[in-house]
Structures are given as structure tokens and as C-alpha cells.
């Protein structure tokens, strides 16, 4: 029993402590988180733009024109991105589209952001469509413009319904970043592969990063449900105030 513990401790030391491997792990964690956060930001911006184009086109009586062209472009974007594997998109971005760039962080955040935008666009569009049509009609009948109606009336109501889906997208994004070593980035997965190659220990590094991913996902899940409850509480608290 004691021997077993000693062995575990030795494995642990070798994987995480020797040669300052924990420092490399921390920097890998930074890479993983940075790609995730930046890609989500790009994804949300792209997603809102595409969702607004798609839902305003759907509501328009007279089809065609500039909006029609934009709508078709958005449709192609969503179809292509959702219809091809993330890793293939990343390889194409690195080896074909941005072949002259050596900034792998830029390549990765753009790739993941563009990918995430396609999924978020449909989530956000769903949220916008789920808001009762009478809401925007009431806004427009008061003389508010399309943009004002979206901003003050429709989008705030849509956010509440899409928050859980947004959280899921963030979690999916985090886990998908584990493929970035194919373009030579040193995230935590690449760190584990390196440690295994040097020490011939597989258990510690791989179980170790699995635990790290898991902890981050659990924390994110908690944060999202906390925010959901805050939004729900908002209404209840206001309800009690009178």
C-alpha cells in the first residue's frame, strides 16, 4: 500500500514538477482559455449579425434585393461551417487561407470564432423568433425604428431564452480547442502529449488534463445556471415589490 502511494507520488512529481513542467501546463491552460474566450467574442458578434439578417429577411414581405443577397451568403456560411468538421476547418484556415500567417493564435481564434458564429447565429435567431411578434409590432406602432425595437424590446427578451444554449456553446468551444496542436499550438492537450513523450507516463498527464477540462466545465455550468437564476429572480423580486 505504502509502495503504491510512493509510486503515485513519483509519477506525479515526474509529470508535473520535474523540469518545471507545471509552468508549461499553466501556459498551456492560458492558451486554451484565451482561444475559447476570444473565439466566443468573435462568435457572438458574427452570430448576432447573421441572426439579424436572417430573421429580418424572414419577416420581410418583398424578398430579394441587398437583404436577399446577404441572406443567401449567411445561409451558405452556416451550411458550410456546420457541414464540415472543426479540425478540417482549422487545417484549411492554417494551410490554405492564412498560409502566410505565422500567428497561430490569430488563426485559431478566427477559425473557432467563425465556427462558433455559425452555431450561435442559429441559436440567436431561434431566440429572436421565439419572441412574440406582437412585441415588435407594439414597438413599431409607437414609432420606434426597427433597430430601436430590436435593441430595447426583442433582444433583451431573446437573451433570456438563449442563455442556456449560449452556455452550452461556450462549453463545446472549450473542449473543441483540444485539437489546436494540429497547427502546432501548445495548449494543455499538447502539454500532455509532450509529457507522455518525454516520460513515457500516460496516466498522470492525460488524466490530469481531463480533470482540468472537467473542472472548468463544471465551473462554467454553475456560472450559467447562476445567471439564469439571477434573471429569473429579477422577475420574481420585481413581482414581490408591489
Amino acid at each position, binding site marked *: 500500500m505504502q509502495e503504491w502511494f510512493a509510486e503515485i507520488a513519483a509519477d506525479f512529481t515526474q509529470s508535473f514538477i520535474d523540469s518545471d513542467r507545471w509552468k508549461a501546463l499553466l501556459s498551456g491552460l492560458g492558451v486554451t482559455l484565451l482561444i475559447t474566450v476570444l473565439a466566443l467574442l468573435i462568435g457572438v458578434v458574427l452570430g448576432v449579425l447573421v441572426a439579424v439578417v436572417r430573421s429580418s429577411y424572414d419577416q420581410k*414581405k*418583398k424578398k430579394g434585393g441587398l437583404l436577399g443577397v446577404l441572406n443567401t451568403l449567411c445561409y451558405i456560411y452556416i451550411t458550410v461551417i456546420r457541414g464540415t468538421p472543426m479540425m478540417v476547418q482549422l487545417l484549411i484556415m492554417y494551410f490554405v487561407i492564412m498560409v502566410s500567417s505565422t500567428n497561430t493564435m490569430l488563426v485559431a481564434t478566427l477559425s473557432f470564432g467563425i465556427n462558433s458564429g455559425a452555431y450561435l447565429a442559429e441559436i440567436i435567431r431561434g431566440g429572436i423568433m421565439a419572441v*412574440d411578434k*406582437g*412585441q415588435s*409590432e*407594439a*414597438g*413599431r*406602432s*409607437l*414609432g*420606434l*425604428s426597427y433597430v*430601436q425595437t430590436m435593441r*430595447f*424590446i426583442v433582444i*433583451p*427578451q431573446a437573451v433570456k431564452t438563449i442563455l442556456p444554449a449560449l452556455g452550452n456553446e461556450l462549453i463545446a468551444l472549450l473542449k473543441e480547442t483540444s485539437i489546436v496542436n494540429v497547427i502546432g499550438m501548445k495548449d494543455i492537450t499538447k502539454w500532455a502529449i509532450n509529457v507522455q513523450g518525454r516520460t513515457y507516463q500516460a496516466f498522470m498527464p492525460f488524466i490530469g488534463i481531463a480533470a482540468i477540462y472537467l473542472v472548468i466545465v463544471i465551473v462554467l455550468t454553475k456560472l450559467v445556471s447562476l445567471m439564469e437564476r439571477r434573471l429569473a429572480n429579477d*422577475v420574481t423580486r*420585481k*413581482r414581490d*415589490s*408591489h
Partner: protein
Amino acid sequence: MSQENGTLIKVEDLQVTFTEPGRTVHAITGLSTEIKQGEVVVVIGPSGCGKSTFLRTLNMLETPTAGRIFFEGQDLTSEECDVNVHRQKIGMVFQHFNLFPNMNVKKNMTLAPVQLKKKTQAEADERAMELLRRVGLDDRAGAFPQQLSGGQKQRVAIVRALMMEPDVMLFDEPTSALDPEMVGEVLDVMKELAKGGMTMVVVTHEMGFAREVADRVIFMSEGNIMEEGTPQEIFEHPKCDRLKDFLSKVL
């Protein structure tokens, strides 16, 4: 503001056609009429005859297929016309209230006048309280729509529209979604408005309201005006068989 003959809204040969895959609906078929300053017009007719479409076209929530709509002399259907500006002067009240659930009563009322720079926040707040007092809801200013009864919601929806100081108010079956005991409180507010000289176009099944308040009753059938006149003429001496048939069902 008022035209020489006091005409506020003029509708010329209005047609509205809805095209859906495999289906074409002629909702309004060449309707013409005029609504005068201060006039209270009640629109009646069987379900599906185009009452809502007619009303919604008056502020361009539906786009006419053909024909023209003049509001205060401006052609709303022309390309150059900024509809948003005219909508500020055309209040609308919906069957299902359409209050904004993410804002309290006061914010529901002040959002548009403040955003559209008609009033400062302070002016809007003051006016909102004044209007809420008038409809007996000043103690509900901080409440959220989901905390209100149907009758209260509709009264808030009416004063929300009044916040823009409109020249005409459109009502689309304002009491149809209400429990019977709440119909009276909403109709009372509408009667007050009419008494105060507001121009109103009201789609309703409340024949008592029509008799009491309407200057003119329009009976619609199949997308057009079939018969119109004073409440007396329409209810006591209906001419066409469709109207007689309709009245026998609703009275």
C-alpha cells in the same frame, strides 16, 4: 393639422393580398373611406372579413398591395414617406395588449417618447403618472405586466399609446381577450377618450359600445365595406341580408 374638410385619414381603393405557398388571400378588396377629425368609427363584421387587416394597414403594419392611404395629407404608401414619423401620431391598441414584459408599467409608457425625443425622462415620468391616475392605476406604476389583470393590462396599453400624444387611436378587439367582468373598465376608458374628442377607429364585437359611442358604424364583409351608417341606421334599419344575418347572430 386638420385638412380643410377635417379629414384625418383617407383610404383610396385599398387592396391587401396575402400570398402564401399554395394560397392567396384577398384580405382587403378595393376599400375606400375617410375618417374625420374627432370621429369615432366602429368596425364590425364576421371573423376573417378583414377588419384587423384594414386597421393594421392604417399604420402600415401590413403593406398594401395596391391603393393609397393618406394620413394628415401625407401618402403613407409612397416610397419617400418615413412611416416611423407618422406612426408616432397613430396610437394602436392590440387584442393581446402586447405590453413589454421586461419593463415595468412606467417604463412601458416612457420608452418610446423618451427614445424618440418627444419628452425628457422627467416630463415622460410626470405625464405617465398623470395618465395612470386618470385610468386609476397610479399605484401600479412600478408593477410588471405579469402582475396585472387583463383589464389593467389593457388600460396600461391604452395610456402607453396616449403617451405619444397621437392624433388617432386604433383599437383591434381591445376587449376580446378579457374576462367578462373586466370588459367594462376598458370600455369606460375608451368612452372617456371618445368624449374628450379623440379620433378613434375601433374593431369590436361590443355592440352596446358601438350604439353608445360610435358616430359611424362600418359593416365589413369579404374584405370590403358592405354597409355603413349611424348606429341607428345600422342596428335599427339594416339593409343588406348579410348585415341582418350578422346582427341576428351577435345581438
